[in-house]
């Protein structure tokens, strides 16, 4: 009897050591870009994909871009971050531009590279570049539409009460607008929302 108990104790201790050693090991795994990995109520990379897909599909299915045949030129001004998190919204605009370009329905003016373009054009016009290959002046295309947006968030925490977990509700909305630069009319606007609840324990070891 005593022997059996001793064996059980040894096995238990060995299992405990193995378990604790496994806990100390660094593990990695590659996550697919379309896989949803969410740790808390905050903004995650998979959210970007979701909101970009929803808005690009709306933009391409509704007027004016949905019915245009002349590949209108668009300029992207940033998406303003009005959330309570440090979120780089340039990633959202980059993805929207990429998806719209891939559709072949619109063209984009490169706003972010304007200074570099001007510098390169100046260099080519400076007399060092062969006149037959240098770019011509005043040939840049003016944008017809301007794309702007705002990312907002509202956070709600569970009121103080006796509980072992704290619940937080997070609401995100991305609003996009397409403005006709000639008339300053908003020709298209849409928004997409993500609402997420997370529960965090109050007590840990």
């Amino acid at each position, binding site marked *: 009897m005593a022997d059996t108990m001793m064996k059980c104790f040894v096995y238990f201790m060995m299992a405990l050591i193995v378990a604790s050693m496994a806990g100390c090991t660094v593990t990695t795994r590659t996550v697919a870009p379309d896989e949803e990995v969410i740790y808390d109520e905050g903004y995650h990379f998979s959210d970007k994909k979701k909101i970009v897909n929803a808005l690009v599909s709306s933009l391409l299915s509704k007027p004016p871009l949905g019915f245009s045949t002349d590949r209108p030129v668009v300029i992207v001004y940033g998406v*303003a*971050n009005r959330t309570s998190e*440090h979120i780089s919204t340039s990633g959202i605009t980059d993805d929207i531009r990429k998806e719209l370009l891939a559709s072949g329905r619109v063209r984009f003016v490169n706003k972010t590279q304007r200074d570099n373009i001007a510098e390169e054009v100046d260099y080519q016009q400076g007399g060092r570049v062969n006149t037959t290959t240098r770019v011509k002046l005043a040939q840049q295309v003016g944008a017809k539409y301007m794309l702007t947006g705002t990312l907002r968030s509202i*956070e709600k925490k569970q009121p103080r009460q006796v509980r072992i977990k*704290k619940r937080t509700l997070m609401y995100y909305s991305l609003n996009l607008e397409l403005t006709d630069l000639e008339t300053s009319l908003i020709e298209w606007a849409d928004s997409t929302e993500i609402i997420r609840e997370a529960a965090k324990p*109050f*007590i*840990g*070891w």
Partner: protein
Amino acid sequence: MTKLRDARHEFYGGHPEKAAEILNELKEIPKRDRLLFLMEKGVVLHRLGLYKESINTLLQASLLMAEQEVISISQQAGSLVTTEWITEYKGEYSERLWIHTYLMMDYLLVNKFEDALVEAKQALKLLGEHPDPLESDYFTRALIALCFDILDEHNGAYIEYKKLAELLDDEELLAKDLHSLARKLGLDDDAEEFRKVMMKKPDRLPSGGQPGEAVFFLELGKAPVKIPGNIVLPPSIRFSFPRYDRSSDNGVSVKVSTDAGIAPPITIATDVGEVARASLKARAAKIMAKETARVAAKEALARSVEESSGELAGAVTRIFLFITEEPDTRSWHTLPKSLVLVRLPLAPGEHTIDLEVSGGGIGVESILIPEIYIKPGTRVFRAIRR
């Protein structure tokens, strides 16, 4: 944490670069003092004008604060028979707020206004969670309003300026901002009320085009630190608790002279010691409840030793437990005594400004601001530590 003490000593000895060096060399920081280390380092880097580095450090502090929301059973149980010093320092409510305040200042100083607004919203969350102890932090509230205002978030700015005017009980100080925002929001009745208040003390607006604004963050003096308080019940029971050193306060006044026509500055100050004391007081009931439990646990332990190993062993245990009963006096030392926001409308162009500051723990001092260039309708930010 001898190194932390050395860094603080160098900081107040006028060698912030040496303080930064000491803190940069610190590689292994005990988990229990990590927040303290990040807070001190953030302010030292801010003082050196290394705003981006200060941001990186204080963002780590902000993340750590979020992680610290989970209560550790092992630390709490251990501290019941030893001392509070073995637990992870989580900062007073005021200190947690000032992490966001310094982040707001840093982001404004590097013209990252969207990020400053993110921090303003984080600060608002804390002000909402602990309204009473943090009520008199007017500086942070003014900074929050400014962050909303800069990004044309008129509604947010209007609400925050209005709250601030109520807290300061001064309807004239922010009447111009409130009038302008009420008009933008289409609140005509409110705008008319604020116009009447403005008329009581007409501004001398700067001439020469659309004015801009110079905004100064004055960080004056040395914040009070925690000191131990003790109540001894003979023969061997000792209640210990932290309290803030009380320092005399005579307020802060700022006079401004420039080479151009100016309107009087808007000056909003926070007495850091007052807010810190209110924050500690708000936790007093929790501290005393835990202290009582610790005293009871230690007495039970001493009696148990006495019963099992005799009177001498019991007496030795009591002496040991009495000595280990030290109040947790950890606090953020590099904070200033006063945080003062000075907003100065200026005409476009180059200006030299002289700020004459009195009070705030530095006596009277004239601070000459080297040339500041104001573009029409824009704001320029400067941080000054004395």
